[in-house]
């Protein structure tokens, strides 16, 4: 396993574009901290975002994993190109001739995917911890380390998304087309969902129940949007006479759905590679 990771690391470390994208990704995560400095005047009242409780424990785990997940596209580009470049440089052929098995090839890519997700999670944990300790109103130990399931959800979500990217890279073999396909897939999912929601199953939650099994939808459900959970939004809504009653939790069956997709994507990648003549 270490040998496979070492091989992938060797391939990535000399690639300038991969290094730049990975660095950008991690730097941008730290830029979440910059939100704290957003200040503006609102009808004569000084308004500081950091004071609105977004960096309060344990809410910060939810908020940061949601925001950081948006940046996953940077790593997605790295993953798609590290897979499809093996096709365009025809190095996959040489790798196999040199004695890497097809199983090992897929496994080495998947290990890289998992380690990207893992290091993102660790990094996010550290950044959030520092941010929280400097801005949170509550710093009791038990509060700091509650709601950590958002980080687990974040990890699974990234792994799932990257596994999808890896599969697309192998399926399409060209990085630009693979990313395009990802976008098309996202549109298709939205259309399918829309059709079900507004045409087929009006006034019931069947559409939602089906859509939660879609790959991208299931990943996005893992960490739901955190904004409507903020006090300020909640109170504004109450004043307007409406009430948000949304479930922000992370559920085991949602994790399970995404994990099933991960297994499917890895298996399909292997299946494709095995069947293909290079």
């Amino acid at each position: 396993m270490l040998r496979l990771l070492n091989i992938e690391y060797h391939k990535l470390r000399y690639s300038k574009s991969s290094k730049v994208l990975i660095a950008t990704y991690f730097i941008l995560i730290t830029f979440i901290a910059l939100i704290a400095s957003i200040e503006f005047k609102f009808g004569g009242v000084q308004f500081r975002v950091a004071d609105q409780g977004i960096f309060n424990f344990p809410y910060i785990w939810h908020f940061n994993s949601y925001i950081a997940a948006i940046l996953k596209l940077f790593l997605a580009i790295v993953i798609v190109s590290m897979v499809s470049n093996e096709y365009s440089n025809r190095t996959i052929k040489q790798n196999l001739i040199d004695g890497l098995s097809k199983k090992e090839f897929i496994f080495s890519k998947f290990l890289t995917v998992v380690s990207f997700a893992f290091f993102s999670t660790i990094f996010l944990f550290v950044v959030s911890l520092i941010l929280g300790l400097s801005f949170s109103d509550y710093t009791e130990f038990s509060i700091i380390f509650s709601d950590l399931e958002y980080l687990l959800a974040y990890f699974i979500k990234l792994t799932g998304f990257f596994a999808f990217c890896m599969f697309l890279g192998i399926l399409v073999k060209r990085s630009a087309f693979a990313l395009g396909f990802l976008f098309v897939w996202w549109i298709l999912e939205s259309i399918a969902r829309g059709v079900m929601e507004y045409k087929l199953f009006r006034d019931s939650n069947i559409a939602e129940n089906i859509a939660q099994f879609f790959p991208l939808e299931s990943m996005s459900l893992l960490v739901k949007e955190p904004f409507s959970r903020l006090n300020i939004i909640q109170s504004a809504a109450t004043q307007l006479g409406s009430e948000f009653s949304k479930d922000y939790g992370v559920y085991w069956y949602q994790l399970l759905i995404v994990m099933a997709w991960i297994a499917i994507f890895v298996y399909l990648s292997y299946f494709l590679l095995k069947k293909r003549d290079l």
Partner: protein
Amino acid sequence: MNTILRLNNLTKKFGPVTAVKDLSFSIEKGNVYGILGPNGSGKSTTLGIVLNVVNKTSGDFQWFDGTQSTHEALKKVGAIIERPNFYPYMTAAQNLKLVCKIKNVSPDKIDEKLDLVGLLDRKDSKFRTFSLGMKQRLAIGSALLNDPEILILDEPTNGLDPQGIHQIREIITRIAADGTTILLASHLLDEVEKVCTHVVIIRKGEKLYSGPVDQMNASFGFFELKAANEEKLLALLHAHPAFGKVIQKGEIITAFLEEPLEPEALNTYLFEKGLTLSQLVKRKESLEEQFLLLTNEMSV
């Protein structure tokens, strides 16, 4: 004998096209093999199958004694097929280091092999800056990193300029002299003739011949003769039981043997009959002539 590779009834179909048909042969240790065949005859497909990048349709193959999986066996093989494939953004040395990691061998030999293929002074240049000849030489160096039991080269001189071809041939000859088993696929006959001891000839995916180069044809060679009295010479040749076909082309008379005959014996025979020759040469068919003979025979 030590068998390195054995193919049994290997078949590969691409849709309706049969690229390799029921192919069987084996590669023994220490020999230099040439796979000969015109373009599109299934040479590269055959190599692709045994190298784990093309899936076979039926039949099987066995590396070494057959106890290892193909990808484990390939760690003891050095192979390049078609064009050299490396990571363009890495230097020569970095690319070779990666190959070492895949093959699970120590990177100590990188400099030695780069030196062998004459690229030591360019070891820190990026692969993408290399010329085709340099890329091909790097590929050979890379294939040699594990001191392989067998070196497989598919059209190693394709697309190279005369100097490049010469350099690659020199390297191959040097490697062959070290006793490494080599399997060389090519459509260039003189290339195979220069280095190979054994040949496998395939056409349209079918094996026409496999065995030592000099036993390819049951031919005894031919004489090229010249004499002042051509008519008498022709008559004498037709009367001699050892000769079959006799062809006259300009001043030279070519007489093909149907049984062994030494030049001395022929000279004595003609002299005794009162004919003196101005030229007497005994030759064997070149690989090219044999190859054409064989492919024509089979197509009739």
